[in-house]
């Protein structure tokens, strides 16, 4: 692996001036990487100015400045663009602005407060840009595309129009460190690209689809992301891959207007399993709802997370053991951070021996994840009686009615509401 601190020309007049971090094994606590990462920064030279696109993590500033100094003097820098304010891209910004005080900083509107919180310099001057805004470097033009929530509120992409290079920030990036830099020269990084999408972009799938509407029409010769290989060979294939990964698949399986309700349960003596069956049968009485029943004991949570991502509602059944829901339930519920679950419908049920706290705890967690929990869960002591199974049946039915919108526009009084919630 090359270690010399060389700037690398990616197209005439445009250089990679980032930093390599091959020793990194864990990024931001949540991501693993088997071969480090890169903090990609770029320098664009125009006839009337030089632009620096993104910086690097503060700990790698020396490497960044060493490369920058090979291709530009500080007094030539007219423009600094931060596509994303996370510290791994803004770490060297304060020092860069100190060395190039004449440079104008361009960020998205949502980046303002983050900038103030990260740089802590109330005098810092910047210009807000949005989709369609441009900055000229004389014979070269930077055009901005606002792509919020890919993967922070502030994220944007910047197109170097004349060369058709998209500086895409974290979009189309990955944690993969290889000094050969270009996607047609580095090692096989496909799994890193997919892993990065699954953990970083996937929770914002709806925003990815909106951003793709902006980016797909562009003619791109090269995508220069803020992490990982520079995509010069078949750059469009990475855009297409994002489209595939972000597109919902469930409508291919069920009717376009049908709703999907997933029931997950785990059961030690078959009691919670009986309740799950009753919830399922109740939900199935409502047309237009596809009901699926899964035993959490049978497998890990990964395929279930995929299913939940596309479902309209989830119901969780757990016994109460030592005052808590059981671990497989929490494992599932703690795995949902990588997908969007807000506004889905939620519910809970379960059998218990002494106390039955699990149901309330699951409901609280579902509400914490911003699911709607419109129907009070059902608890049954040990073997559920016929009346309790009937209430499970009704829970499923009510949830299914909520999913289909059949209960919309109901008017109830506060006293009815209080009576229902204390059942």
């Amino acid at each position, binding site marked *: 692996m090359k270690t010399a601190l060389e700037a690398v020309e990616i197209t005439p007049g445009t250089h990679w001036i980032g930093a390599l971090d091959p020793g990194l094994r864990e990024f931001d606590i949540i991501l693993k990487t088997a071969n480090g990462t890169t903090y990609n920064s770029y320098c664009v030279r125009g006839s009337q100015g030089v632009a620096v696109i993104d910086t690097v993590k503060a700990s790698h500033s020396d490497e960044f400045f060493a490369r920058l100094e090979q291709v530009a003097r500080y007094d030539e820098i007219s423009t600094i663009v931060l596509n994303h304010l996370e510290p791994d891209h803004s770490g060297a910004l304060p020092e860069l602005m100190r060395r190039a005080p004449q440079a104008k900083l361009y960020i998205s509107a949502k980046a303002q407060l983050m900038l103030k919180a990260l740089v802590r310099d109330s005098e810092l001057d910047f210009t807000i840009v949005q989709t369609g805004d441009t900055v000229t470097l004389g014979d070269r033009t930077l055009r901005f595309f606002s792509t919020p929530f890919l993967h922070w509120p502030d994220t944007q992409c910047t197109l170097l129009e004349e060369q058709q290079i998209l500086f895409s920030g974290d979009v189309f990036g990955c944690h993969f460190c290889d000094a050969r830099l270009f996607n047609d020269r580095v090692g096989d990084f496909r799994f890193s690209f997919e892993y990065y999408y699954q953990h970083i972009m996937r929770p914002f799938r709806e925003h990815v689809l909106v951003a793709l509407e902006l980016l797909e029409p562009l003619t791109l010769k090269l995508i220069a992301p803020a992490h990982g290989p520079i995509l010069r060979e078949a750059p469009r294939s990475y855009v297409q891959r994002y489209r595939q990964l972000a597109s919902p698949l469930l409508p291919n399986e069920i009717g376009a207007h049908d709703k999907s309700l997933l029931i997950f349960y785990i059961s030690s003596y078959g009691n919670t399993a009986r309740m799950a069956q009753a919830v399922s049968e109740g939900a199935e009485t409502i047309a237009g709802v596809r009901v699926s029943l899964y035993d959490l004991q049978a497998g890990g949570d990964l395929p279930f997370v995929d299913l939940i991502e596309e479902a309209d509602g989830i119901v969780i059944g757990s016994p109460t053991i030592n005052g808590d829901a059981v671990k497989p339930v929490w494992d599932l519920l703690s795995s949902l951070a990588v997908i969007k679950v807000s506004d889905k419908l939620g519910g809970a049920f379960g059998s218990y021996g002494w106390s039955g706290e699990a149901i309330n705890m699951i409901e609280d967690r579902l509400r914490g994840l911003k699911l709607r929990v*419109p*129907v009070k869960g059902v608890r049954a002591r040990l073997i559920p009686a016929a009346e309790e199974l009937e209430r499970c049946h009704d829970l499923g039915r009510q949830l299914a009615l909520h999913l289909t919108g059949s*209960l919309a526009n109901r008017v*109830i*009084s*506060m006293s009815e509401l209080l009576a229902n*919630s204390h059942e």
Partner: protein
Amino acid sequence: MPKANVTFEKLGITVSVPAGTRLIEISEKVGASITYGCREGECGTCIMKITSGMEYMSERSVLENQVLQDNMAGRNDRLACQAQVLGGDISVKA
């Protein structure tokens, strides 16, 4: 006793409540997808968007105003734990 009607748009439920009820008392019971934090008007977790009927809500306290500002809340946002409904028809995005 004067009544207020609070409609939870996403849930499709309208709850008829006595005037003076705090939004949180209703939203919790109705199962709205709102997260609650301190419940004392300090953390800003329970910000809720009022889509109509703001004129029927209690005035913002100094504390609520400050917390909403700190959280970059919009003109139609309120803290569910602080805002009381005073009458009329109110709709919330939840």
